[in-house]
């Protein structure tokens, strides 16, 4: 059965719609922010090719601050490196050849990856792809609107959008992942590692380093 014919693909698509609206609004703010730095075309191309909010904002901020391409690339890669451990978590749930698995990996965004997690290391890839699908046009069209129409919505922070995603991750953590024992311990350790590193490392590093908390899984039960 193809991935898109799977029932959980539609379930993911429906679950993804409200977050696509949030992605659209954030996409507008990216277009507004990036247009003075890189002109009208590049922000749209960047959104279409990267589809990675935090890395795009970070790279644009570096360029806007007068940093060169190398510094912007490093900032962006640091933020996107979390897709490494996220892909590792997803991998055991994937079937098919390497090309198919690589393609499914491209559908990873924080929101859909988290939504597809079923606990105990299992993921639902069809749900993840379905949940990502509405966000892609939302993000790219948002950039177009931001570049062309400018500051229609003002500051997205005024809408509380920056609290929406951490609350979403908290909900998934509480509902799906926070089983007593090792999963709960891994969550607490991951949070502590990240918090400890935030003041001392570039953005992105705390999240990647937090995945080291999973190594407690090596110990004897």
């Amino acid at each position: 059965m193809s991935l898109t014919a799977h029932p959980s693909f539609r379930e993911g698509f429906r679950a993804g719609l409200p977050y696509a609206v949030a992605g659209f609004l954030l996409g507008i703010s990216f277009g507004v922010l990036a247009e003075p730095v890189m002109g009208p075309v590049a922000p749209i191309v960047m959104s279409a090719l990267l589809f990675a909010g935090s890395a795009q904002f970070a790279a644009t901020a570096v360029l806007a601050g007068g940093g060169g391409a190398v510094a912007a690339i490093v900032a962006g890669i640091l933020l996107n490196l979390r897709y490494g451990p996220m892909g590792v978590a997803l991998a055991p749930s994937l079937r098919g050849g390497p090309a198919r698995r690589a393609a499914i990996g491209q559908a990873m965004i924080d929101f859909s990856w988290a939504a597809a997690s079923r606990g105990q290391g299992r993921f639902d890839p069809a749900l993840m792809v379905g949940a990502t699908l509405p966000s892609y046009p939302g993000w790219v069209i948002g950039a177009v609107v931001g570049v062309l129409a400018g500051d229609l919505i003002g500051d997205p922070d005024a809408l509380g959008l920056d609290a929406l995603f951490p609350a979403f991750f908290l909900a998934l953590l509480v509902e799906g992942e926070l089983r007593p024992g090792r999963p709960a311990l891994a969550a607490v350790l991951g949070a502590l590692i990240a918090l400890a590193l935030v003041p001392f490392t570039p953005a992105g590093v705390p999240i990647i380093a937090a995945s080291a908390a999973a190594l407690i899984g090596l110990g004897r039960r």
Partner: protein
Amino acid sequence: MNVASADAVWITIGVLAVATALIRASGPVLLGGRELPARAAGVIALVAPALLAALVVVQTLSEPEGGELVVDERVLGVGAAGVVLWRGGTLLPAVALAAAVTALARAVLGA
């Protein structure tokens, strides 16, 4: 705010596009499609809770560009969501409340 040179912009976009695609493909390509040893599977099963918890605290308590920990209106919003979840509430009301409380707190506090 500086206008970046066209070269710097397009090099940044090109390299980041390729790097991001490779990073997203790496885990699925290298580790997918086969049975993993039990010890590896035991570690991988804990990556999701560790990363989710890190995403929660980093996105609640730090700025997107990094730097010092900050306590602002997001703490109220995410905290309200936590209370809803703790009382047995479901995902969508909790998430909506987080955004609403944060927005309201900003409006009231004039941030």
